[in-house]
């Protein structure tokens, strides 16, 4: 097995980009990553694209449409996909392209353009349900996650105030992020609790905003990494896992699939005590409770302990275990697959020490990023470490 290094990252502004097409967003992110690493288009051996449902762009075989935006014309190019988990899964695929020895340099691009959906991207989610069992209930995602949040609160006796703290923390963290869509330095718990109720117990400010954007990462074989940087960041471990389609048949209070993926990644990285050995985390936070849920799934705390850590300030940027120092999806925005930007690219920037205002104090050596997808069933985990 080859060791895999990360040598460049790029990320566009997260907004509703009505003027740019998906290709153009991919191009912007790709260009930034190439300039960051000092590579030219011809240096790239293979390309991986991550993009969530085709229905957002309204283009069948969306991956094919994005080829020229991601510097992949004439190159081996593949699109991988597992719903919301794609943002962390695409870099995992990039890892195996290089770790296998097939590619020396692999570019990973993640693009999402939800703004094409009229009137709201939620309409594209009408077709993610089982046509016979679920669709007659006319479900929608907020409705579904309200059930999961309720279950999580009920099992552990968690108050909404504790969960609102996550929104406050992440939206404040996002203030230093140049790509952020919903940063707010003055937000309070009351603001979150008093925002409109979408489906109890989910309030408007508990939800990350739909967005358009793209992010890119460049992976490189350890043997040649000295050509590009003296201070490489390595992929320490990867893991991914899926649970049953039948979301009705499992207890929603704990994401077992995330735990399974995390165990796979920790085993690869030879981590025995994640809470002690991992310096910071970027769990997927499309809803405020999900950050807590995923912290428990990542085995970074005991079941039901995540709200306590949040209340005690452990997960603040200057805390003992900084969580979502980027501002996460709640603060920076949620263009499904392009959240690779706040998750995996953020690990790279933090470990490299170039995160600017978002930089974690101290000397972070190892970080974990996680995403979650499909109908509450997919966990994807990646660990990056410094040199």
């Amino acid at each position, binding site marked *: *097995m*080859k060791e895999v290094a990360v040598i460049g990252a790029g990320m566009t502004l997260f907004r509703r980009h009505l003027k740019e*097409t998906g290709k153009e967003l991919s191009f912007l992110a790709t260009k930034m990553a190439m300039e960051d690493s000092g590579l030219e288009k011809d240096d790239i051996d293979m390309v991986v694209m991550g993009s*969530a*449902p*085709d*229905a957002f762009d*309204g*283009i*069948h*075989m*969306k*991956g*094919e*449409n*994005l*080829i*020229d935006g991601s510097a992949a*014309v*004439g*190159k*081996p*190019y*593949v*699109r*991988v*996909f*597992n*719903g919301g988990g794609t943002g962390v*899964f695409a870099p995992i*695929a990039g890892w*195996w*392209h290089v*770790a*296998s*020895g*097939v590619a020396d340099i692999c570019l990973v691009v993640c693009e999402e353009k939800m703004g094409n959906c009229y009137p709201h991207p939620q309409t*594209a989610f*009408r*077709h*993610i349900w*089982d*046509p016979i069992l679920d669709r007659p209930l006319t479900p929608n995602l907020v409705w579904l996650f309200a059930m999961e949040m309720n279950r999580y609160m009920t099992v552990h006796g968690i108050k909404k105030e504790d969960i609102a703290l996550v929104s406050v923390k992440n939206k404040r963290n996002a203030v230093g992020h140049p790509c952020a869509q919903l940063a707010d330095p003055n937000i309070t718990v009351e603001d979150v609790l008093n925002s409109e109720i979408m489906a109890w117990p989910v309030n408007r400010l508990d939800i990350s905003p739909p967005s358009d954007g793209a992010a890119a990462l460049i992976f490189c074989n350890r043997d040649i990494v000295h050509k590009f940087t003296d201070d490489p960041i390595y992929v320490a471990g990867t*893991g*991914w*896992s*899926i*649970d*049953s*389609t*039948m979301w009705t048949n499992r207890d929603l209070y704990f994401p*077992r*699939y995330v735990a*399974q993926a995390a165990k*796979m990644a920790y085993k690869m990285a030879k981590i025995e005590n994640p809470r002690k050995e991992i310096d910071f985390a970027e769990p997927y936070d499309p809803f405020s409770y999900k950050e807590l849920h995923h912290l428990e799934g990542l085995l970074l705390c005991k079941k039901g302990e995540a709200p306590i850590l949040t209340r005690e300030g452990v997960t603040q940027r200057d805390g003992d275990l900084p969580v979502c120092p980027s501002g996460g999806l709640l603060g920076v925005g949620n263009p499904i697959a392009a959240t690779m930007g706040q998750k995996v690219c953020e690990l790279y920037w933090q470990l490299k020490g170039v995160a600017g205002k978002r930089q974690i104090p101290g000397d972070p050596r190892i970080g974990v990023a996680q995403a979650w*997808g*499909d*109908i509450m*069933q*997919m966990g994807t985990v990646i660990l990056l470490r410094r040199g």
Partner: protein
Amino acid sequence: MTDRQVCVIGIGFTNFNSITPDIQWKEIMYEACKKAYVDAGIDVRRDVNSFITCAEDYWEGFSIFDEFVPDQVGALLRPCCTVCGDGLFGLANAYMQIKTGHINIVAVEAHSKISDLLTFGDIMLHAFDPRFERPVTGPVERPNYGGSPEYTPEAPKPLVGSSDEKERIHPYFMAGLEMQHYLKTTGTTEEHCAAVVVKNKKNAFFNPYAEYEAQISIEDVMKSEYLFKPVKRLDISPNVDGAICFVLADDRTAKNLGIEPIYLSGFGYSSETPWLGTRGMNAGYATISAKMAYKMAKIVEPREEIDVVEVDDRFSFKELQHLEALGLARPGEAKQLIEEGALEINGSIPTNTSGGSLGVGNCFEATGMQKALEIVMQLRGHAGKRQVANAEVGLAQAWRGIPSGSGAVAIFKRG
């Protein structure tokens, strides 16, 4: 650990049928996977480390098809993902996963349940660039941003859903353009292409799972009507439903299981520009992927070293075009090969012995898998009446279909 080899240890497939209204996509996937696990002699819940499905959302009719995969392939709480591409792209990713040294056994599944689609042509049209290319195919319902559109008796609502709509051109027109180019630049005639149809539909008689076998003559093909001139009705491979599963493993695991492995010794894939207007018409994707695969499999003289070939023949001329692009024939030479009978089962380059897409049917993302399946059966010596004598090395090639410019090649060798 990168010196470990990757081999096929199990194959499973369903029968291929033109329509399957009685079963769900989950059922055909289950059948193919179960057969593959039995073939490999493994317990899926204990032994398989990773699962890959090759699917596109729009073909399946879902927004996130990945959700509907794990149960029937046995992937609960296991690594599982979707590769949006042909089955050969899935095999390539499985190869890379195994080569990392962290994963030993991978199951790759691809299927077609295309008969569920009522709007085949319109879905395909959705793969064209919405701004520049879709309008080329004729009047499409205009987006109405102000609310629901108003239709008058003089300008009624277009028949959305009918691919045969008179005023809209079916995306297969691309094949017509490309065939014209191919015929003109190589001096191939429509009769040569018709001979491909005759050969493949004849081969399909010996293939129990093929759906579209037929005893026809070149005249029959020439008499069928032009749909996208010069493409005639019988030049097009008809759609088919079915599922295929491969189990791949590293050579040591295969040895421990006591299986005589078929090695996946090389693969290649490549994409041309998505812009139809600036793309070449010579299957450049096949040339680049073949180059990559030959290098990986250490093949110098493909014509000499490869014993059996399965190339994409979703349109009859594509078989000839792909043979040239793969370097198995010189440019313009393929017409001679089909004339001389070199592409027959007992010829010098046995091509599409399974019946190809013309004989088996167009199985969309499973097309490459069907090609690879035939190669593995040939190398195992399990191909029955269509067996090629002494087959040691085989090549499978597939293209992602209109309007894509992506394709893949896989090379298999007997252990």
